[in-house]
């Protein structure tokens, strides 16, 4: 089937997509946007997190056809015209990145959290990010990155 959708603000059209494919494989294999990662393909790790019509989802669990006409946001589009989104900058500066495989999904999840809850408590951070697994960091520096970003973002997100 054909697929037309908007990705990071740009209209994209894909000529042939299998009905059994997911939004994740469309992004990675059809559109070459490999920033979004595949680590479990069953929604257990959050590495594939993207925005779908303004809500944070696991793209591995979205049937490709459901993205027809949708507005999708990925890590590649987060910074817009800037070099880095404040969340990305905070991750880098706080030492919240090691192997980095979980980083795109987490950056999206943190971006989503901060636009809804500009000054989250420790509990709110942990519950909001509980769907994103990280094997390298033990999570502590990621929480530091969230606080660092929260202090800078002032509740405004350009996305």
């Amino acid at each position: 089937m054909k697929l037309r959708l908007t990705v990071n603000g740009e209209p994209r059209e894909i000529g042939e997509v299998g009905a059994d494919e997911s939004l994740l494989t469309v992004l990675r294999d059809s559109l070459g946007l490999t920033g979004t990662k595949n680590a479990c393909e069953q929604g257990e790790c959050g590495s594939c997190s993207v925005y779908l019509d303004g809500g944070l989802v696991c793209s591995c669990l979205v049937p490709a056809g459901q993205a027809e006409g949708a507005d999708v946001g990925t890590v590649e589009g987060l910074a817009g015209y800037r070099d880095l989104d404040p969340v990305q900058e905070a991750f880098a500066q706080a030492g919240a990145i090691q192997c980095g495989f979980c980083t795109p999904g987490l950056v999206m999840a943190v971006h989503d959290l901060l636009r809804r809850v500009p000054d989250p408590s420790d509990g709110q951070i942990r519950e909001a990010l509980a769907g994103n697994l990280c094997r390298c960091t033990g999570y502590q520096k990621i929480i530091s990155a969230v606080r660092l970003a929260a202090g800078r973002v002032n509740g405004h997100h350009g996305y």
Partner: protein
Amino acid sequence: MHFLQPTSWDEALEARAELPGGLPVAGGTDVMVDLNFRRCHPAALIDLGRVPGLGEVSADGGWLRIGAAATYEHLMTALRHDFPALALAARTVGSPQIRHRGTIGGNLGTASPAGDAHPPLLAAGADVEVASQSGIRRIAIADFFTGPKRNAMAPDELISAVHVPRASGPQQFAKVGTRNAMVIAVCSLALALHPDRRRVGTGIGSAGPVPLAAAEAERFLEGVLGEDGLWERPRPLGEAVRGRFADLVASAARPVDDVRGSAAYRVHALRVLAGRVLDWTWADYLAAGPRHEAPAGRGVAG
């Protein structure tokens, strides 16, 4: 494989009738796992995401109508007052990403004994409304689950909504897992007091081939509350009642050993949880009498 996107409920029913091998999908959080792992090859996917109004939650007198496509994210907040057990259960499902997409209709369609929505539906005495081109019917939740991942629907039917009486008394839901988040329940328990009907409802998850009600425990507690006039003039229940109730809940379970837990642990955990959720619901009832809202997620000194 086809991908069908009906834009009305009638179109959806038509697609369902014409393609018996078609798989309905809403949030995709169950269906896509099987597809990603190539465990199934349906003739088509029937996307319910464009059917207007399928996710609405509305009240009709003493009843709630929960649209099949209502997401856990929505239910967490929308049901705090009218169906607290399901609001609590919704918060335990997966992750924020999953809760944004997963639906109550999907839970019922998959009919897993571990489905988090099922115990609250049992405890509340819900009806599942299913539709086909031939019409609409309601299936009592107690009759809905026919086996592990099997339900009482016909091949040409879709779930349209769940009907449940609005809470008239305190409700609780508790789910045990081996870690603190993102777990498929090792076991779970819902308890609802229905003072308007002088009834007690329970639901047990992940401790049998299907979600189960602890019928003997329900009758026992109803007997105690009814005979001693405790619905009207509530007072503390005492250790003997608590213990008996807990034992009866535990004995209703039919668990097996599996990778997530042992049968012995499931029975033990249910006994512990039963005593606790009874403590909490009864404490709420003592404090406020009938039609009390159990605040979701806050500890109450008991």
